[in-house]
């Protein structure tokens, strides 16, 4: 094989590698899915989809505070205590309840320290949960959030005529 051929192969290989990494990054799937396996196999598809429970029934702080909040185990139990433990997931839930332990949910959505974000004002402006979080009612295992890069926020702010001032969202 001539030097030229080797060079072309190496160049193409490096290019493909770079493209691959770029693609993974842009799809935000560079993280391993293993990290995102929740302690309780909770399904949004079942709760929000089939059972049609409103988002804010569980994430009840969203309308009144910056954070949406993850429901406490007690809130889960308001329904679950009267349900039979038919699935392994429900048994896991019951174990946590009996041991009086909080469920160590893995946080999937996180914004950096330099971002000021409030659920309250976004709901006030008429956004729905699905505008940013996607149609969770059809997701069995909730995937990691979109990357929430600045351009993503700006696109929506632009379309809806919201503020472009840096200090609206940066603190």
């Amino acid at each position, binding site marked *: 094989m001539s030097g030229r051929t080797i060079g072309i192969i190496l160049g193409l290989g490096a290019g493909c590698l770079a493209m691959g990494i770029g693609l993974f990054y842009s799809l935000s799937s560079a993280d391993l899915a293993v990290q995102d396996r929740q302690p309780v196999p909770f399904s949004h598809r079942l709760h929000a989809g089939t059972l049609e429970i409103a988002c804010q029934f569980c994430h009840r702080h969203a309308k009144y505070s910056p954070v949406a909040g993850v429901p406490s185990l007690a809130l889960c139990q308001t329904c679950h205590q009267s349900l039979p433990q038919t699935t392994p997931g429900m048994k896991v839930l019951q174990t946590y309840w009996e041991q009086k332990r909080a469920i160590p949910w893995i946080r999937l959505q996180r914004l950096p320290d330099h971002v000021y974000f409030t659920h309250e004002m976004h709901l006030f402006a008429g956004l729905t949960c699905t505008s940013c979080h996607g149609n969770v009612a059809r997701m069995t295992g909730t995937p990691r959030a979109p990357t929430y890069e600045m*351009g993503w926020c700006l696109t929506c702010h632009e379309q809806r005529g919201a503020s472009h001032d840096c200090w609206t969202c940066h603190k």
Partner: protein
Amino acid sequence: MTSRPSVWEDIPKINRDLLAPLQTTTWWYGLWVGVLACFVAAGAGAWTYQIQTGIGQTDLHHPIFWGSYIGSFVFWIGVSHSGTFISGVLRLTNAEWRRPVTRLAELMTMIAIMVTALFIFYHLGRVWRFYYLIPYPNQREIWPNFRSPLMWDATAIFTYATASTIYIYLPLIPDFALARDRVQGWRKTLYRRLAIGWHGSQAQWHTLETAIRIITPLIVMVMISVHSIVGFDFGMALVPAWHSTIYAPYFVVGAVHSGLGMVMIGLYVLRKVYQLHEYIRTEHFEKLGKLLLVTTLLLAYLYFSEQLTIWYGNIPDHLAIQNALLYGTYAVPVHGGLYLCRPPADTGLAWFSNNGHWGS
């Protein structure tokens, strides 16, 4: 100007002499490369340390947040002006004696400008975010601020680096061809690529000379504007004693001045090490010495008028700085280093070279 007899018959000898370092490498060359590599490694280590621990390692503090890095930046961009000035201005004025010194001067330009660029990075508080300075379409939808003198500066330096690369490359094409015909191995491939098919025909010479004629006045203009803009970094600021129109000409003259000095020292070393007495002659030191004398006097005048305008203007904030410089905290380094030593040292260098002391 002393004219030498026709050199046509000397050409094979010239080629042999000047390309000799390409053919042979001595042990001390390797040693020198090793020593310099150690310096680079030490510098890289120091920079890593600074990034890891914080920019506070520079020992700077408020209210003036700029220090040795910006000073070094200005110095190196100044040195980089030697090449363009010597080869550009002298080419424009048809000063034939410049020929042996231009290549060295242009190379110094290139190297100095690379060092200059490094100092921008050393200076940044969060260097890992340097790409905010680059104008490219990005998802954040923010561009750099072109109202900032620092952006003018970045643009100017990028332009200057590009232009001076072209400027050193064009006259190098025939020389790459010479080297191509004399070396073997991977270097032959390298020089063949760089010589882009040069075979020295009349038409090629004509094209090359036209190209050089076009780029020479352009690069002289770029050179003057670049250092004016470096001066603007200070002149545009509100800082007392910086906020002055004198900075642009001051910096241009100072740049040419330090560049000339650097070239003279470089020439001296090159001449001694490679035994190039036949090519780099006393005449060159004389001519460069005269130029150096002119810039020394110009600079001395600018030193004087800088202080004169502040003194005469009598604005309290500016005067406070002047007092600190001339009579106060900084009096010793300013008087000792700048006023007492520099003009005499530079005039001395000019006189020294002009009297043929470096001739032997």
